[in-house]
């Protein structure tokens, strides 16, 4: 909500351009929604036949810096406040509710190519690079314990490995004033990880998240 408000405020402002020329250093902040596209293997035995997992989408604040080495080429380093994803059952354990939450904190480094002139107010861009998803602080539920044979005294926990994956993105920036800009982008990261239960079983899964990002930037 706050993000949307700022976004609108920036769009309403007016002024000249030149925000995106060689040497420009833009600090940006905004919001993002990460929607994993999950394809999990069956949980290893012992387990119900066809036990799988799904990871739901989440939203969080993101921010970062973009440095222009030329009028068209820029490098962007973005980090995010942790996304809190719900982990739910699929396959044999579909419909059993939330089994865990896991915090994901992506850090991405992308090279971006900007179309149009440095002075253009509207500049589409494409980017490619890598994203490191730091997966941590998973919190399992009573349902996961029950399904996996844990108890309240010895609950089952879920750990997911942090992984690095390639990212591509497309987006566009609107330079509202000489210093202020707004941008929107859609990125796709190819990411595989491993989930392990404290009861010993594990599963491999692709997360392959799609990230939709809005942000406002200020040029220093």
């Amino acid at each position, binding site marked *: 909500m706050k993000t949307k408000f700022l976004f609108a405020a920036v769009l309403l402002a007016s002024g000249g351009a030149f925000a995106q020329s060689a040497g420009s250093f833009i*600090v940006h902040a905004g919001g993002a929604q990460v929607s994993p596209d999950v394809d999990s293997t069956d949980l290893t035995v012992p387990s119900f036949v066809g036990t799988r997992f799904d990871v739901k989408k989440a939203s969080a604040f993101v*921010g970062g810096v973009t440095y222009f080495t030329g009028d068209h080429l820029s490098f962007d380093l973005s980090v995010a406040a942790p996304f809190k994803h719900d982990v739910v059952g699929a396959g044999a354990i579909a419909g*059993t509710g939330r089994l865990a939450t896991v915090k994901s904190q992506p850090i991405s480094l992308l090279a971006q190519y900007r179309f149009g002139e440095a002075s253009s107010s509207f500049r589409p861009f494409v980017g490619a690079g890598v994203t490191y998803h730091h997966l*941590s602080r*998973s919190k399992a539920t009573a349902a996961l314990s029950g399904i996996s*044979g844990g108890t309240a005294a010895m609950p089952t926990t879920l750990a997911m490995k942090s992984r690095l994956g390639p990212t591509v993105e497309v987006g566009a920036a609107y330079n509202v004033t000489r210093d202020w800009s707004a941008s929107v982008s859609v990125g796709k990261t190819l990411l595989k990880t491993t989930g392990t239960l404290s009861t010993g079983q594990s599963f491999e899964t692709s997360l392959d998240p799609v990230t939709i990002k809005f942000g406002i930037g200020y040029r220093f």
Partner: protein
Amino acid sequence: MTSQLNRVAAASAALLAGLLLAACGGGGSTADTTPQVKITSVKVFGDSIQDSGTFGYKFTVQGADNLIYAERIAANYGLALCNFYSFTGTTFVANTAKAGCTNFSIGGGRITYTGAGAGPTNPLNVGVQLATHASLGSFAATDLVIIDGGGNDAADLVGAYLNIPRDTAAAYSALLGTLLTPTQIGTALGGGATTTAQIGATYMTALADKFYNAIKANVLDKGATHVVVLNIPDITYTPRFQTVLDSVALASGGGTAGATARAQAQATFQGWMTAYNTQLAAKFGNDERVALIDFYKGFQDRVNNPAQYGLTNVKDPACPRTGVGADGLPTYTFPTCTAAALSAAPPVGVTGTDWWQRYAFSDGFHPTPYLHQLTQQLIAKSLAAKGWL
């Protein structure tokens, strides 16, 4: 330019540090085991697989941490169970050694108990257990009720049916007569082998009606809103009834003829249990207060796919046989079948103390603690799907 870059660096560093800090606080995996529904008491009614110690022992391998599935479900809610009844050697009395116990299940419990001391007040009838609770008060919204029954009734019916050649159907007729009319029974038994077998299904359907009515009157109509009911597991998969079926094959001369007779007998018995299970499911319908567990299929699934469930042996009882019963089948002694005793005496050719831990059966008819855990997981899956866990 330098000062501008410094400002940029400072601003960037502040932003990145802020976001990174937001993510910090340790990467450990934890659990919040608060169930979705607050359950403060688990009340259990049924037979041996749910008995917490009416006779001073459990119907599985004995051990301090060898919980039965009902106790494991209770543990999911942070609760423990103890036996409501104690056996005096002749009769069942309230457990005075420990107050507030809510597990009414008794080993040997049946929907219709016809053995020694049978009568309308004997708590070996699961319905009497239910009525006893009903006489003490109603259920609360924070009660979880777990009920099983019918497994021993099905076993009784199988035994009586197989005894027809020896007692001219006396036991079979008597058992059928507890729920069916003499006319029904006379017509069936006079109609030949097919109708004699089919009347068993009619009996099991009536048995499901009887059990449903007892649960409705004493549990659902008494305010219970979280009720777990297990249907009959496929008892033909137990070592005891595998032996019974083997003797059916032998009695038919073994070989192909024996195998055919064995398969027919198993199909008949499974048909009876399915008749009961189908009727029970129909009776409860879509009652949102009830989680009906398909123990029949779940149990078959585990025995048919041992590796999937981490079972190493689904044929042999883990406990040593200690005798032979009047029916010619092996007997076992649970009080002496302890975890320590089993670990100390691995079978020939086996080393290690944990050899028995992934066996499915403790004796010929009852699960090991591990199969209890697998049953708890089966129930938990339904509880989670209901939003109760």
